[in-house]
């Protein structure tokens, strides 16, 4: 028989829900055997040195669009483990005050990350632990850390130059082979047989000689193995990719606009997606892959190291493959209803929500009948790139990529946190308002969101 779980204490402040009396009425009295709300393992959140600063509590996301970054309120919390939250609070401090200097904690974290990166053999566990708290925005750091987290760069620094050279030339090979148009392909086939091409204008008058075509390759060929036929079949996908790339982040100069820079970036995105589609006939290209590629390419291209920036396309390709490998199943239509497909993932999110906040779950799915597929589909398949602004989604990805639980698990926890953070508004809303809210998720403090997500981590005993 299922035990009804109570709302965890830290959620139970006046901050989150309607007047305590009704909250108590809605939730059954806690059973004595209920364990105290779990806290994240100390090793993950422990700041390098203990902080004495006063607790600054997090604000409730405001009812409307006003950016709450600049509001701070002090609340009473039943919470008595203040020092665990302090480093997150300080993150908030530094995140919120846009123009202020990074906090001492951030500086020390950056120093630690840099120290870790400069070691001969990087301790990936340590790097993950540091990266999970957020990667500093200083140029170049995120690029290298992501490459390490995605397994593109091996932990042993000594191997980096050979690995990079290897992979980059491999990508160049892919490009040459895959992006060649049929004219060139057939020309190379011809060149092996004869080198005769008549000059159009020359002194003599002759009948132009006709020659045989190799392998029956001609542009109108309908043969399945014909390079021309395959080319025309691929044009559909290439057109789709082209359209999607042009629509990616239209508000960012990096991706959009008439500048040479934007155009070359778009070209790079297209190449990567086309090559991926050709190399993976099982999944090919699905709309949305461009959104997953965009932050990767952006981070890698903005590397201050010139060589890295020049090879950003090749590096981004392999990182994209690696990142997508965990999420491929979301894009395969046939798997939609299977155990590994997107539907099952959404169901797991639903279960996670039920586990952590039954009241909200019940209100959302049963009372207001908001099917999680209506909002969670985009959250999950696009890895939250569409729900937050670009800079925030980079921070979220820091956590997604570095969390030892793996991106999919972490993603579900973050989604769950997203729901719980706006529970007051959701509980007050009906189908229409809730759906509207969830499909246009209000801007929120990312560090706080990640902190809450972290709290849902499954505790090992």
């Amino acid at each position: 028989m299922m035990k009804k779980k109570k709302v965890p204490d830290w959620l139970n402040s006046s901050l989150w829900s309607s007047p305590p009396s009704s909250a108590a009425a809605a939730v059954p009295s806690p059973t004595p055997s209920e364990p105290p709300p779990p806290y994240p393992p100390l090793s993950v959140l422990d700041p390098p040195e203990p902080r004495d600063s006063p607790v600054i509590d997090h604000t409730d996301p405001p009812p409307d669009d006003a950016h709450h970054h600049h509001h701070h309120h002090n609340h009473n919390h039943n919470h008595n483990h203040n020092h665990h939250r302090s480093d997150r609070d300080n993150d908030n401090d530094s995140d919120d005050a846009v123009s202020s200097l990074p906090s001492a904690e951030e500086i020390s974290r950056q120093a630690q990350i840099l120290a870790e990166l400069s070691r001969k053999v990087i301790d990936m566990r340590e790097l993950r632990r540091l990266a999970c708290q957020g990667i500093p925005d200083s140029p170049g750091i995120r690029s290298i850390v992501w490459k390490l987290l995605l397994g593109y760069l091996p932990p042993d620094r000594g191997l980096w130059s050979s690995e990079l050279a290897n992979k980059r030339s491999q990508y160049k090979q892919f490009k040459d082979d895959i992006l060649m148009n049929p004219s060139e392909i057939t020309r190379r086939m011809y060149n092996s047989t004869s080198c005769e091409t008549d000059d159009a204008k020359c002194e003599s008058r002759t009948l132009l000689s006709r020659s045989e075509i190799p392998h029956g390759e001609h542009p109108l060929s309908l043969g399945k193995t014909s390079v021309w036929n395959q080319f025309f079949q691929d044009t559909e996908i290439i057109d789709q990719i082209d359209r999607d790339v042009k629509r990616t982040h239209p508000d960012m100069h990096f991706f959009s606009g008439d500048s040479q820079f934007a155009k070359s970036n778009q070209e790079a995105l297209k190449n990567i997606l086309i090559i991926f589609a050709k190399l993976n006939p099982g999944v090919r290209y699905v709309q949305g892959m461009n959104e997953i590629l965009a932050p990767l390419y952006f981070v890698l291209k903005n590397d201050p190291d010139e060589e890295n920036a020049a090879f950003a396309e090749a590096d981004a390709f392999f990182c994209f493959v690696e990142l997508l490998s965990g999420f491929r199943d979301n894009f395969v239509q046939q798997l939609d209803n299977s155990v590994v497909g997107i539907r099952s993932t959404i169901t797991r999110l639903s279960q996670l929500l039920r586990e952590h906040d039954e009241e909200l779950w019940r209100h959302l799915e049963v009372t207001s009948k908001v099917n999680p597929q209506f909002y969670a589909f985009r959250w999950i398949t696009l890895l939250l790139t569409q729900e937050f602004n670009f800079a925030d989604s980079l921070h979220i990805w820091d956590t997604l990529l570095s969390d030892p639980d793996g991106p999919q698990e972490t993603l579900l926890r973050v989604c769950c946190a997203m729901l719980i953070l706006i529970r007051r508004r959701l509980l007050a809303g009906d189908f229409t308002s809730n759906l509207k809210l969830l499909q246009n998720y209000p801007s929120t403090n990312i560090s706080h969101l990640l902190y809450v997500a972290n709290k849902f981590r499954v505790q090992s005993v």
Partner: protein
Amino acid sequence: MVLVLALGDLHVPHRAPDLPAKFKSMLVPGKIQHIICTGNLCIKEVHDYLKTLCPDLHITRGEYDEETKYPETKTLTIGQFKLGLCHGHQVIPWGDLDSLAMLQRQLDVDILVTGHTHQFTAYKHEGGVVINPGSATGAYSSITYDVNPSFVLMDIDGLRVVVYVYELIDGEVKVDKIDFKKTSSGQSAH
């Protein structure tokens, strides 16, 4: 990589009912970027059919065309090449290389495409290349016997052109090619 279809002298419906089925099965929309037609379609239905294959259609007037508004000659630039189009019944003697070369110099084009003889030919001379795609339906003509249906597909890629010649011989489609290139994109002095 631009694909240009060159065909003509279909003489539908007077001398032939339609393109051969094997040609029609190959000519599908979406592959060809331009169509140049030497003329003698002769009716609007053929024009409409060609328009479905490719919206960029250029036609010059043959002596039996019902549409009187097609021009006598036409020139267009595709990539690095200038192409000229003319039905060819105006050029006398019919199919004579010297006379056609004069027309080519007049039009100042690298590739001249003409028809009327219902026979595929491809010549080169000092002024450029002359191509006759033949009759796409194999319609009879007064100057050619045993006409095989034929048409031409040009693949213009930079300074090179690969001309694919499609002929229906004994019920089978045979494809050959001809390669040629320009040495430069500027005017060459003769």
